[in-house]
């Protein structure tokens, strides 16, 4: 546990040292601010019928949201292992008395912490909304919980891909495309046969994430996100270990 804490602290500190993180944070906040503006505009237009998931605008209801989430997660996770492989620091790290699992979990937790801290400023939007209209805080909570679970899964995907190669760019690109593919499974269910449709629908990130924006915490979605996260982290540990089988 002590090793985990030491590793975690260093990883998190490094995320705050690198300029990339600040660029990512800026872009993210600009886009979420913009999404909030769309939400406010929608609420101000009395001609439009009120939907149950107005918070869908902030959480996953727009294409731009998914693009930004994919880009942000890929940019933050790309260097976690790739950089260590490229500079050779992995050799130094893995010859100290730490286990591969500790290293993987600490990197994952640090990236996840950074991503979730990025969401903290968005609470101000909820506060502003609360000033002018009645907000169902249960829905807000479900939205943030969904975001947390989604970030768990996407971060573990990013870290897994980063652990397979030396190039940050390759890691970024593959993670980015991977996330967009998970997202687009939802649209692909219309072009496949009935038999496969249910599989595609279950595997689609969008389908699993949507209930949260409506304030529904379904156990199916929670299991979906957590099990994929656990599986991808397991793959990462194996990928880091693979230097021993080659």
């Amino acid at each position, binding site marked *: 546990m002590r090793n985990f804490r030491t590793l975690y602290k260093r990883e998190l500190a*490094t995320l705050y040292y690198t300029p990339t993180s600040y660029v990512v944070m800026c872009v993210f906040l600009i886009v979420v601010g913009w999404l909030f503006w769309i939400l406010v505009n929608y609420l101000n237009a009395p001609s439009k019928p009120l939907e149950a998931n107005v918070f869908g605008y902030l959480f996953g209801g727009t294409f731009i949201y998914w693009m930004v989430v994919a880009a942000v997660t890929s940019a933050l996770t790309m260097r976690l292992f790739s950089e260590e492989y490229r*500079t050779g620091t992995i*050799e130094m790290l893995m*010859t100290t*008395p730490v286990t591969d699992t500790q290293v993987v979990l600490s990197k994952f937790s640090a990236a996840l912490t950074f991503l979730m801290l990025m969401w903290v400023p968005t609470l101000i939007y909820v506060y502003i909304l609360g000033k002018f209209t009645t907000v169902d805080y249960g829905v807000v909570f479900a939205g943030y919980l969904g975001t947390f679970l989604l970030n768990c899964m996407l971060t573990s995907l990013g870290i897994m891909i980063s652990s397979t190669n030396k190039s940050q760019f390759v890691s970024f690109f593959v993670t980015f495309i991977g996330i967009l593919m998970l997202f687009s499974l939802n649209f692909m269910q219309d072009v496949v046969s009935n038999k496969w449709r249910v599989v595609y629908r279950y595997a689609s990130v969008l389908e699993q994430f949507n209930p949260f924006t409506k304030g529904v915490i379904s156990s199916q979605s929670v299991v979906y996100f957590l099990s994929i996260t656990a599986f991808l982290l397991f793959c990462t540990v194996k990928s880091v270990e693979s230097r*021993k089988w080659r």
Partner: protein
Amino acid sequence: MIQVKELVKTYADLLAVDHISFNVEKGDIVGLLGPNGAGKTTTMKILTCFMPATSGVAKVAGHDVFKESLEVRRHIGYMPENVPLYPEMRVNEFLSYRGRLKGLKGQSLINRMNAVIDACELGQVRSRIIEQLSKGNKQRVGLADALIGDPDLLVLDEPTIGLDPNQVRKVRELIKEIGRDRTVILSTHILPEVEMVCEKVIIMYKGKIVAQDSMSNLRSGNKKRYCVEVKAPKSEVERALLDVKEAYEIRTSESEGWVRPRCSRAFRRKTSPRRSSSFCRNTPGPCGF
């Protein structure tokens, strides 16, 4: 301290380490000498548990490097080739982080940090960012990192590569100083370095150990073979060597005008071999380099 038996490592179809065996006693300073690609770094990576061997046994402080990897790593301070460091950290942040990973905390961490910073003369740069340090200072930070856990065994891969002569001298002195109370194994392709620093040498070539002995034994004995380089036409060199009665098994190779004859000396004859003429530029040594 180190027991290696029949160690083999293959990368895909390349045989990097070929059935090597050696022992290192506690307190020795041992040099792994050999040209690039001889398998020195691979041997070190196996000893430090970074990767396992294909076959064979390696033990450090009585623990198997594969089965008891974590235990072995507690005994080792390792400085990899080219000293990879985290460039964004400050020297004392980095050393404190590494110290914690190696199990130090609180006052003992602070004391140990001060001790290695003093030993490696890093006092002036302790709050500088590693990225901005000179190559020599980075090397020192790497050495300080290897030392911070107070390990019984120090494994240094090419510790002086890329340094200016002055820094090379200082790092060698430092290694000698450190080696007084612990075991050190270092790799290099520079013969004088081994002569200056090490008590024992293991010579590797193409994955095999071609010689291992103490420096003094290697210097005095084993001069059965001579390797000289002569600048002269090949045919003349061969003819001249034929006149030397004591020399047999003569083989010559030629590159860029230099002829390299290798021959063995016959000890059966009492007469001393005729001294080579003034155009020889090499001193006797083990052949193969």
